[in-house]
C-alpha cells in the first residue's frame, strides 16, 4: 500500500476532489463563487492574467519576427502544471527570476538580429529606420509592432516611452533593437491582459473587447498571438457579436495554424507529451520511434478533429497511421518510411486512441506497466472522471516479509479505504495489460505467466467489461462520459482552468455538449460553441 500511495497519489494530485481550506501564508487558492454575481444568473467563472505558455511564446515570436527561437525556448524551465493538467493552466503560471533571465536571453538574441540583419529588420518593422526618414519609420513601426505584439493598439503613453528608449541609441538599428527587447519582455506581451467593459444589465461581468477576444481566439485555436488580419477583424468590430466570433472561428479552423495549434492540446490530452521524458531500457525505444508514436496520434487526431466526421470515432477507429517503425512495433505488415493509413485486423485489441503506442507509453512511468497508472490515466484523460483524492488518514500499510506483488489486489480490496477507489481504478488497467510499457503486444510476463486481460469500467453505467484498447474505446464512446470529456478538455484549453460544473460552468459545458451532439460530434462545432460561450466572450469584472 505504501508504494501504491506514492504512485497513485502523485497521479491523482490534479483531480478535482475536495478543496481544502488554505492555511498559512498562501492566499486563497480557490477563487470560488464571486459574491458580486447573484446566484442563478450566468457567471463566466474566475479568470486571471494568463502568461503565454512556452509553446505559445515560441510560435508568437516566430510569426512576428520570422525567426525560430526554438533552441532558446528549449532552455526555459518547465511549465509547472501538475500531472493531467494542461500546460496553459493559469493558476500555475508565474515568471520566476530564472524565467525572466530566459526571456532576456531571447530578447537580446532578437535585438542582435534586428540590429544587424537589414533585410529582416525592414521586413519585421515595415521600414528601415537606419536608412531614410528615421522619425517617420520609428513612429510607424512602433504602431505596427506594438499592435502585433501587445495585441491591441499602443496607447500614447506607452508609445512615447518606447520612443524615448529608441532615442537613447545614436544608431537607428540599435534603437530598433532596444524597442524589440523591451516589447518582448513587456507584461503586455508576456501576459494576456483582459479588462473588458461593463455590461449594462449584468452585475460584475465585463464584455471583453474585440482585441481581447481576438487574442482568446488566436491562442485557443492557433496557440499563438493574433496576426494582422485577425486584428483587423477586431478593429472592424467583427468580434463584437457571437455571430462574428463564430464566423472568425470557422475561418480560423480552416487555417493550417489550427492543426498545429490544436495538436498541442491533443499532445497533452492523450499524454503524448510524456514521450519526451519517458525512459525505457528497451533498445527500440529511440528518438525516431518516439517521434513516430507522436506523429501517429497527431494524424489520427487531425482526421477526427478536422475531417468533419464524428469526433468520438477517435476512441474506436479501426485504422491508424504507421510508418516502418510503428508497423514493426505493432506487428503489422511492413510499411515504408512515410506514414500511411492502415486498417487494423478485425480482431485486433488495438484501435482507437487508447491503442496507440504513445498513449500506452504515456500511461506507464518505467519499464513496468502499472494497472493503477493506466487505470487512473484512462479515468483522467478519456472519461474525465478522476478518482477523488484519498481521504485524510489513509492508513499506511507497512510492508511485510512474504507479501507478494500478486497480493496487491487483495491488499487493495481487503482495506476498505483503499478499495473504495482502487476497485474502480485497477480493473481498467487490467484490460490493457496485453500491452507492454512501449505499447507492444504481449501474451506473457517475463517469467512466462500469462498477462491479465479482463478489463472493467465501474464508472460507466452497466459496469461494462472490455478486453483491449479498441473495446475500451467503444465503451467510452458509447457512454456520455466520452463526449463530455472531449467538451471539458476543449473548455480547459480555451479558458486555462479546470471546469467547475457544480458552481458556475454548467451552462457553458452543457451548452457546448448540446451543440457538439447537435452537429453529430463535429469537433469544429464544439470549438465554435466554446468560443461563443459566455465564459469565453466575457469575464468577471476585475476585483477592486
Amino acid at each position, binding site marked *: 500500500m*505504501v508504494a*501504491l*500511495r*506514492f504512485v497513485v*497519489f*502523485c497521479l491523482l*494530485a490534479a483531480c478535482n*476532489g475536495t*478543496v*481544502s481550506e*488554505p*492555511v*498559512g*501564508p*498562501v492566499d486563497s487558492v480557490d477563487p470560488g463563487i464571486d459574491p458580486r454575481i447573484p446566484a442563478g444568473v450566468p457567471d463566466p467563472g474566475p479568470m*486571471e*492574467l494568463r502568461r503565454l505558455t512556452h509553446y505559445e511564446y515560441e510560435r508568437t515570436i516566430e510569426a512576428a519576427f*520570422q*525567426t*525560430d*527561437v526554438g533552441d532558446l525556448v528549449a*532552455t526555459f524551465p518547465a511549465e509547472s502544471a501538475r500531472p493531467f493538467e494542461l500546460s496553459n493552466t493559469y*493558476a*500555475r503560471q*508565474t*515568471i520566476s*527570476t*530564472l*524565467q525572466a*533571465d530566459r526571456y*532576456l*536571453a531571447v530578447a*537580446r*538574441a*532578437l535585438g542582435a*538580429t534586428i540590429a544587424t540583419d537589414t533585410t529582416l529588420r525592414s521586413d519585421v518593422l515595415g521600414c528601415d529606420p537606419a536608412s531614410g526618414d528615421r522619425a517617420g519609420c520609428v513612429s510607424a513601426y512602433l504602431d505596427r509592432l506594438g499592435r502585433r505584439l501587445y495585441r491591441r493598439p499602443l496607447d500614447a503613453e*506607452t508609445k512615447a516611452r518606447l520612443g524615448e*528608449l529608441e532615442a537613447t541609441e545614436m544608431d537607428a538599428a540599435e534603437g530598433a533593437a532596444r524597442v524589440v*527587447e523591451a516589447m518582448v*519582455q513587456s507584461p*503586455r506581451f*508576456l501576459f494576456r491582459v483582459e479588462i473588458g467593459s461593463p455590461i449594462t444589465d449584468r452585475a460584475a461581468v465585463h464584455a471583453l473587447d474585440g482585441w481581447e477576444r481576438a487574442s482568446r481566439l488566436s491562442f485557443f485555436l492557433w496557440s499563438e498571438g493574433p496576426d494582422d488580419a485577425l486584428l483587423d477583424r477586431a478593429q472592424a468590430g467583427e468580434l463584437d457579436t457571437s455571430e462574428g466570433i463564430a464566423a472568425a472561428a470557422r475561418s480560423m479552423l480552416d487555417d493550417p495554424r489550427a492543426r498545429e495549434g490544436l495538436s498541442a492540446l491533443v499532445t497533452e490530452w492523450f499524454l503524448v507529451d510524456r514521450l519526451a521524458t519517458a*525512459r525505457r*531500457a528497451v533498445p527500440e525505444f529511440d528518438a525516431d520511434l518516439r517521434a513516430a508514436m507522436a506523429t501517429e496520434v497527431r494524424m489520427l487526431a487531425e482526421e477526427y478533429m478536422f475531417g468533419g466526421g464524428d469526433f468520438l470515432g477517435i476512441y474506436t477507429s479501426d485504422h491508424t497511421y504507421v510508418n516502418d517503425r510503428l508497423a514493426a512495433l505493432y506487428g503489422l505488415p511492413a510499411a515504408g518510411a512515410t506514414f500511411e493509413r492502415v486498417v487494423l485486423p478485425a480482431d485486433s485489441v488495438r484501435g482507437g486512441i487508447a491503442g496507440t503506442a504513445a498513449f500506452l507509453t504515456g500511461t506507464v*512511468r*518505467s519499464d513496468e506497466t*502499472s*494497472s*493503477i497508472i493506466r487505470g487512473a490515466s484512462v479515468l483522467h484523460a478519456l472519461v474525465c472522471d478522476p478518482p477523488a483524492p484519498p481521504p*485524510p*488518514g489513509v492508513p499506511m500499510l507497512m*510492508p*511485510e516479509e512474504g507479501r507478494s*506483488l*500478486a497480493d*496487491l489486489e487483495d*491488499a487493495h480490496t481487503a482495506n476498505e479505504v483503499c478499495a473504495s477507489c482502487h476497485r474502480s481504478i485497477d480493473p481498467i488497467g487490467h484490460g490493457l495489460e496485453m500491452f507492454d510499457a512501449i505499447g507492444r503486444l504481449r501474451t506473457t510476463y517475463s517469467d512466462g505467466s500469462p498477462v491479465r486481460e479482463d478489463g472493467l469500467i465501474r464508472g460507466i453505467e452497466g459496469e461494462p467489461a472490455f478486453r483491449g484498447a479498441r473495446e475500451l474505446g467503444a465503451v467510452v464512446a458509447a457512454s456520455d462520459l466520452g463526449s463530455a470529456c472531449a467538451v471539458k478538455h476543449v473548455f480547459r484549453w480555451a479558458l486555462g482552468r479546470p471546469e467547475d460544473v457544480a458552481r458556475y460552468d454548467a451552462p457553458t459545458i452543457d451548452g457546448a455538449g448540446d451543440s457538439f451532439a447537435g452537429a453529430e460530434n463535429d469537433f469544429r462545432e464544439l470549438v465554435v460553441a466554446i468560443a461563443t460561450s459566455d465564459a469565453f466572450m466575457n469575464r468577471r469584472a*476585475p*476585483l*477592486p
Partner: protein
Amino acid sequence: MTTKKLSRRTILRGAGIAGAVTIGLPLLEAMLDDRGLSFSKASAQPTSARRFVVMHWPQGLPMGWNGGDFFFPTSAGSGYSPTAALQPLVDAGVLGDVNVVSGLTYERIRSSLGDAHGHAPAFITGYETVNDGGIIAQGPSADQVAARVIGTSTRFASLATGLYTQGDFGNPWTGRGAPVPLELSPQRLFDRVFGSLSLPEDEAMLQLRRTQSVLDLVKDDITTLQGNLGSNDRGRLEDHLTSIRELERAVTSPPSTECAAPARPADVPYDDGDATEYARLMIDLVAMALRCDLTRVAFVSLGGIWRTYPHLGVGTDYHNVCHTGFNEAASVGPRLDDDRELAAEYYRRIGLWHMEQVAYFVNALKTPDAMGGSLLDDMAFVALSEFGDGGLHHESYIPIIAAGRLGGMTGGRHVVNRCDFAEGWQEGAFCASAPGPANRCINDLWQSALTGLAALGEGALFGDPSLPTTTIPGLWGA
C-alpha cells in the same frame, strides 16, 4: 516565409561572449589554475559574509525495513563509529567537518491529504501543503527566507540548481507557493552567473547600460499596467516585477574586478549515464559563485527519481528500486525487481552515490583560499532528503548532514534528538533515550540555521507559527 534560426550561439553573440572556451573537467582546477581566477584576493571574499547552502537528494536512504543502521550512528556526540552511508565522507576526509543530525520529523506538518509526495515540500517550507485540485506548497522555503536577508547585497539573491529534473519534490518555494525552477544545465548556469565576466570591460558596460534602460521600461510598464488591473492580477504582476528586479540586479551589476572569468564548461548529455561529472560540475560552479561572492544562498538538488544508474549496475529506475518488495507501482505479474535483496543493494549503491556528492560538496566548500579561510567558516550547510526511507515515504528519520562553522559550530558529532517513533527501528530505539523534546519537527533545524544566519526577525519562527519551534542545541551556535 523564410525563418531565421537563432541558436544558442547567436545568443552568445548577442551577449558578446562568442568564442568562449569549452573545457572538460575538472572544472574547479581549470578555473583556479589556468584562468588565474583571483578570488583568493582578500577583498573578493568578505570575511563577515554569512552563507547558506541546502543540498537535496531524492527518496531518502535505505533504512527501516531494509537497513536501519545504514545511515544513523548508534552513539551520540563525537567519537561515534561512522556507518556505511558515511563512508564517502570518511574517504573525502570531511567527516570531521560535518555533523549527523537524527531524530527529526515533519509528521506534524504532513498534509492531511495523506498524499505521499504531495506533502514532501513541507520538509523545507515548514508548512503543511494544501490542495486546490493539485498540490500547492506553502512557502517560502528556508533558503528563500535566508535569501531575503543575507542575499540582498550580492548579484544573485540565491541560486537554485539541480540535475535532470525540477527537483523531484526537492526545490525551493516562493512565498506565494510557486516552485522556484532549478537551473539544470552547467553551461547555462555558467552563462548566467559568469557570462558577463568574460566580456571585455567596455562591451560589458555597454551591454549593462542597454539592458538597464530596457528593464527600466519593462518595470515602468508593469507598474503602469498594475494600475488598470484587478487585485489578483496585480499580485501576479508583482511577482513579475520582483523577478525583473532580481534579474536587473544580476545582469546590471558592474563587472567584478575581483573575480576573473572562469572557462565556460561543456554541457552534459541528459541521459542515464554516469552523472558524477555532471554533479561535480554543478557543485563546482555553485562553489565558485559563492567564492566570487556572486551569491550567498544556494540550493542544489541531485534529482533524478525516474532515471537508472547503469554505472552503478542499476538498470531499473530509482523509484522502482526504492519500492521494491512491495512495489505497487507494479500491478500484477512478476516485476523486474521482485528481488528484495537485490533492490536493497541497488538502493544502497544509489544512496552511497548521493553521499559521495555530499562529500564532494563539503570538500569543495572546505578548500582553503590563499588567506587560509574557507567558505565553510561563515556558512550553514545542510544536506538532506525529503524522506527517511524513500520506499516508505517516511517523513521521519530524515537523514541530515549539517556542516559549516557558522556560530562556531564544531563538526564530527552525531546530534541526536529524542524520538518516539512507532516503528522501533534501530535508530528509533536509539534516539528514544536522547534528551530534549520528543519528535522534534524539522522546522527546528531550519530555525537553527536561520537563527545562526541572523535571517529571522526577533522572535520570528520559521514555518508554521503554531508549532513549538525552537533551535537545536549544538547547531550553528544555538
